[in-house]
């Protein structure tokens, strides 16, 4: 954690999650301070039909401005962005979003790997990526690319995950900097600079 304070100011945090991850966010968001100096980008697997009410639901848990991404939205610090259902979410060099409706990856659209990879390329060492509960392999490849680009990797402690497979799979296949439960996550995030 010290290294983040000294070396690279965090510009973005990407969080990926699948089954069981929503509850984690509901518990985590109220614990965050009301001003974060970086953008928080959420990529969650969800049913297509769940459409746009999820961002409204999340926004009831935090005072940070929360919205579902529209194409070419600018990425601003202190905001929480949610990947829209059924699109891949990519990040451009000029720190704006673009959407993509190409094939599903790992049976998923949005794919966590796609966003993590794209974020790693843009933010490099200024990125923190965190993978939550889930029952598939999406996110592992993305985390390894974040690590390769010099970013920080975190997984939810599998013992606290409703579906431990996803964070566990990432731990087995790539280098993870921190394994955290919800309270530790909030402490870690609130101290990021």
């Amino acid at each position: 954690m010290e290294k983040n304070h000294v070396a690279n100011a965090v510009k973005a945090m990407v969080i990926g999650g699948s089954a069981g991850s929503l509850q984690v966010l509901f518990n985590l968001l109220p614990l965050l301070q009301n001003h974060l100096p970086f953008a928080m980008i959420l990529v969650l697997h969800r049913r297509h039909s769940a459409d746009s009410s999820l961002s409204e639901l999340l926004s009831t848990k935090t005072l940070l401005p929360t919205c579902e991404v529209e194409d070419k939205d600018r990425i601003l610090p202190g905001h929480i962005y949610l990947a829209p259902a059924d699109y891949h979410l990519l990040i451009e060099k000029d720190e704006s979003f673009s959407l993509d409706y190409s094939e599903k990856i790992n049976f998923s659209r949005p794919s966590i790997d796609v966003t993590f990879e794209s974020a790693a390329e843009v933010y490099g060492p200024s990125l923190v990526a965190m993978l939550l509960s889930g029952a598939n392999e999406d996110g592992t490849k993305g985390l390894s690319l974040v690590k390769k680009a010099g970013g920080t990797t975190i997984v939810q402690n599998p013992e606290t995950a409703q579906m431990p497979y996803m964070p566990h799979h990432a731990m087995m296949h790539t280098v993870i900097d921190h394994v955290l439960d919800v309270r530790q996550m909030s402490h870690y995030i609130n101290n990021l600079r």
Partner: protein
Amino acid sequence: MIEDEDVELLLNDLVDIYGYDFTSYSKASLKRRIVRLVSIDKFPSFAEFRYKLRTDENYLKRFVEEITVNVTEMFRDPSFYKSLRDDILPVLGTKPFIRIWHAGCSTGEEVYSMAILLKEAGLLRKSLLYATDLNPSVLEKVRKGIFPLQQMKQYSESYIESGGLKDFSEYYTAHYGQAKFEKELSEKIIISTHNLVSDSSFNEFDLILCRNVLIYFDKDLQDRVLKLFDASLGTLGYLALGTKETLKFSVIQNKFKQLNREKIWKKIM
């Protein structure tokens, strides 16, 4: 690892040699698809990929097919189609003749969805649907009107959700895992290649649909294409975009008024 500079060189080649201009596409998505293609086709280096593309026109065809995203479906976003049924078609129905442009139609699932709506509104007879895409091979699929049968269950559900009252299977005949849509629908579809980057306006339309195409363009190209749409729409014509696309902050924003929660705008000046 493919560098951004490599991608730029490649895109400049395509303009110089073939006149295909992808330089204003959204970089993140374009690069991802190029990386994917280099890996699928097992090129040992980017230089060899670039050489193949420069020298082999057949490979260019494959490149265009693989780089442009051709994932689409019938009655995608049923509430959008419901709004077309309830809010747009009754207005268009008062006209003696209806011209609709599906820009970047890909394999045509949305064009057939629209033809079905028009038929059910009793308007198909006096309508023409222009289906265009830059990729000639997908247009062949539009012409045939044949789609995988395994998708029909989901399409049927979306159709019902959009307010459809018929048995969806009335519209196609099933054969060897394929669904062929009835001829009456395809007879009203005019198919042509059109590149939104380089080609100009070719008619005046009452409704233009361009859904999930602009997401692949950068902001400047989006503005250029939106101006093209503006120039191709009659007064009080409608423009329909994908659910996460917007006219907000665009150059034509003030000439259009959003109709409702769906991404449909009316041209007011």
